[in-house]
């Protein structure tokens, strides 16, 4: 089955605790500290993100999940006063190296945000937006269809490709944002709580989608929902807040294959968090 066919096929029923398939790293985080101005938001995150796997970042609110995620495609560069000490290795180099163009990084590492954020344009133009930025102008119709199929949205919108994206439901908008992100075929897709603003059925669709998409992409997802992490993630990483010394600094407590992570958490904060969250 070709990649296009794989994407065109409806997402297969996913298996929870999918066995790890690939072992090589897509991204390696070696973060010493992340600052917003004088505020040290995150310290000590060493994490390997495996290729063609779903990695979930979990942890209490404010522990720095979004901050860490947004380091991976240099979105934090847009925040005034943000500073990073450490490195993020991708394709064999540190993306924070002076020679690296953040725009190029973001073309290789796509992002889906917490709030669906389609542009006030037609469905089709939303999908082609990133393609056009990359100078792709041929076979746009096929590419739109492929991306929308990949995001499990094609059947719902194929007759309204020229309708405004804002006329879609929240869940459809979020899947459109996923289609927009995969249209340019990035290597990695970052998702920051992609299901928090949508209903359970749409959530289920997006979860199935993630499992289907990892055949082709590497996915990193931030989620508050531990069940979701268990369902979709191959690896799980837990961040927690260190309140010693009067700060509120997030750090990586532990990470590992999801099944093992939930069955035998090694660290006390993880045990408490997992136990607390499951009542």
């Amino acid at each position, binding site marked *: 089955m070709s990649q296009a066919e794989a994407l065109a096929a409806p997402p297969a029923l996913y298996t929870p605790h999918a066995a790890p398939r690939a072992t090589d790293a897509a991204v390696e985080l070696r973060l010493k500290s992340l600052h917003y101005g004088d505020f040290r938001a995150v310290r000590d995150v060493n994490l390997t993100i495996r290729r063609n796997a779903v990695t979930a970042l979990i942890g209490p609110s404010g522990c720095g999940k979004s901050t860490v995620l947004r380091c991976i495609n240099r979105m934090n560069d847009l925040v005034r006063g943000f500073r990073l000490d450490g490195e993020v290795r991708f394709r064999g180099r540190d993306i924070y190296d002076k020679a690296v163009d953040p725009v190029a990084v973001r073309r290789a590492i796509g992002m889906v945000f917490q709030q669906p954020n389609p542009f006030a344009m037609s469905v089709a133009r939303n999908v082609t937006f*990133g393609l056009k930025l990359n100078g792709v102008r041929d076979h746009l119709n096929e590419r739109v269809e492929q991306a929308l199929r990949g995001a499990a949205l094609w059947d719902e919108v194929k007759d309204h490709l020229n309708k405004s994206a804002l006329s879609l439901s929240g869940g459809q908008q979020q899947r459109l944002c996923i289609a927009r992100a995969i249209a340019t075929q990035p290597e990695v897709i970052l998702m920051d709580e992609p299901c928090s603003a949508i209903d359970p059925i749409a959530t289920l669709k997006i979860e199935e989608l993630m499992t289907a998409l990892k055949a082709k992409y590497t996915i990193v997802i931030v989620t508050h929902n531990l069940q979701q992490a268990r369902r979709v993630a191959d690896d799980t990483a837990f961040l927690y807040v260190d309140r010693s010394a009067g700060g509120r600094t997030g750090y990586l407590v532990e990470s590992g294959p999801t099944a093992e992570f939930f069955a035998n958490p090694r660290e006390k904060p993880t045990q408490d968090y997992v136990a607390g969250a499951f009542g």
Partner: protein
Amino acid sequence: MTRPDPTGTLARPPTRFDKWADRSFRGLAATSAALAVLLVVGIVAQIAGQAEPAVREYGVDFLTTSKWDPSGKKFGVLPQIAGTLYSSVLGVALGSLFGVTVAIVLTQDFLPPRLEAVAKGVVELLSAVPSVVYGLWGIFVVIPALRPLANAAHETFGALPIFGTRLSGPGLLPAAFVLAIMVLPTVTAISRDALAAVPGKLREAAFGLGATRWEAIVKVVLPTASRGIFGAIVLAFGRAVGETMALAMLLGNSNSFSWSLFAPGTTLATLMANQWPESGAVEKGALMYAGLVLLGITLLINSVGTLILRRTVRVEEAHQ
């Protein structure tokens, strides 16, 4: 069963005072609204009344002929209509280009926040400068500064109608230039609000797809704010069409229309300002007619602008 309502507040009818206050406030609001409308209608009626003999006498010819000859009692405002539109279009085009650029610089993180606030204040201050001061500034600064450039352009490209004459003193280009500065605060303030209202999540989406800062601005932020920016330009146009003092000082008083950017010109408003003091009864009537035409143009611009805005709103709502 729910609990009883011991204080009786649910059942308490409005007191007489409540009713009186309500009624008088409604009356006040209605009266103010009616007064505002009446005032406009009154002014238009007044002008129309004064213009009526001239309208009867000259009819449509007034709009299509070019002579302004009080002694021969021949009046036509074609050059003034053309000049009004030409100078406004030029001034608003320049002012919009400049004003939207300033608005972009003020909203898209080009400046540190404190500098942003200062620059915003300075632009707003521009709207407090009286028209006559702009006129003087135009005469003593803008015209001398433009003259060498203009004359060089005439020498080189004199074959083109827009460079067809020399700039000897007052002329269209300095007038349009000063007009641009005068409409700048309007354009900037309104476009700034429109740009600032573009949700940050849309900019993030663009950046997340690998847009450069300019791509994000041109392809996402500006289109999203386009309605507000369009509104700003329509408003600026309304202001430019009626601007009198600065134009009377900078445009010269030629009573003829020229495509040359460097030739003196005329507009409906400057015609009225220049001719009124020495006009006899017949000419006053003709000037009133010119005023009516100006009013018509302003009204037309505003209605067309509103119409276009309303249509885009409807299209957008249909999409929601």
